[in-house]
């Protein structure tokens, strides 16, 4: 399991390439039949308004702990080999990656379900807060929508 909070931009596909080379292919050669990945990216619109920028705040310490709890729950529930979870904080621009959730498993059912579970749990429990920059002023996002 690798869980990281980044205060500068990360590159999801490069991070996956590197993690697979460094960890997955080395530690689980021939065992990982299925990888499921989700990448969340900053949009330039939300609730009908144009968004020009975003600031992501978090609770250092608790955020990492809660993310690790969530991945741990997924490990209890599904058969997983490895997980990679990256989340951005700080000032973002449209098209910046916000979150990467990747899981590796022998079988696709475990990979799909665990990836989605981690993402939904993160959305409802991990202490991050989005402040959206509008043309005039800013606003805090009040609530994440349900993803199921």
């Amino acid at each position, binding site marked *: 399991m690798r869980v990281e909070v980044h205060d500068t931009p990360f590159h999801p596909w490069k991070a996956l390439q590197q993690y697979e080379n460094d960890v997955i292919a080395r530690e689980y050669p021939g065992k990982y039949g299925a990888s499921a990945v989700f990448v969340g990216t900053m949009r330039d619109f939300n609730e009908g308004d144009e968004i020009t920028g975003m600031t992501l705040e978090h*609770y250092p310490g*608790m955020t990492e702990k809660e993310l690790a709890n969530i991945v741990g729950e997924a490990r209890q529930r599904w058969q997983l080999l490895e997980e990679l979870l990256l*989340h951005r904080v700080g000032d973002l621009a449209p098209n910046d990656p916000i*979150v990467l959730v990747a899981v590796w498993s022998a079988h696709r059912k475990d990979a799909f379900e665990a990836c989605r579970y981690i993402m939904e749990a993160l*959305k*409802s429990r*991990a*202490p*991050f807060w989005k402040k959206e920059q509008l043309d005039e002023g800013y606003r805090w996002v009040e609530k*994440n929508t349900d993803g199921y």
Partner: protein
Amino acid sequence: MTVRVKFFASLKEQMGCDGATVEIGEVATAADVWLAASGGKALPNNVLVAVNMEYCDPNQEVSSGDEVAFFPPVTGG
């Protein structure tokens, strides 16, 4: 006893500070800590509470030295 209080996001802006050190009686819940830190305002329904970086009920008792955090619904991902 003394506990450390933290506020985040919109709540931090509303409170005008990111936290405080609060002196409170020996038996106190997280909700009592809120009352002391907010100058007597009731704890809003949608505010989340964590003690020592774990989610908990506002009625949970706190201990000296605890870190008690209050924050709005989370919106990451």
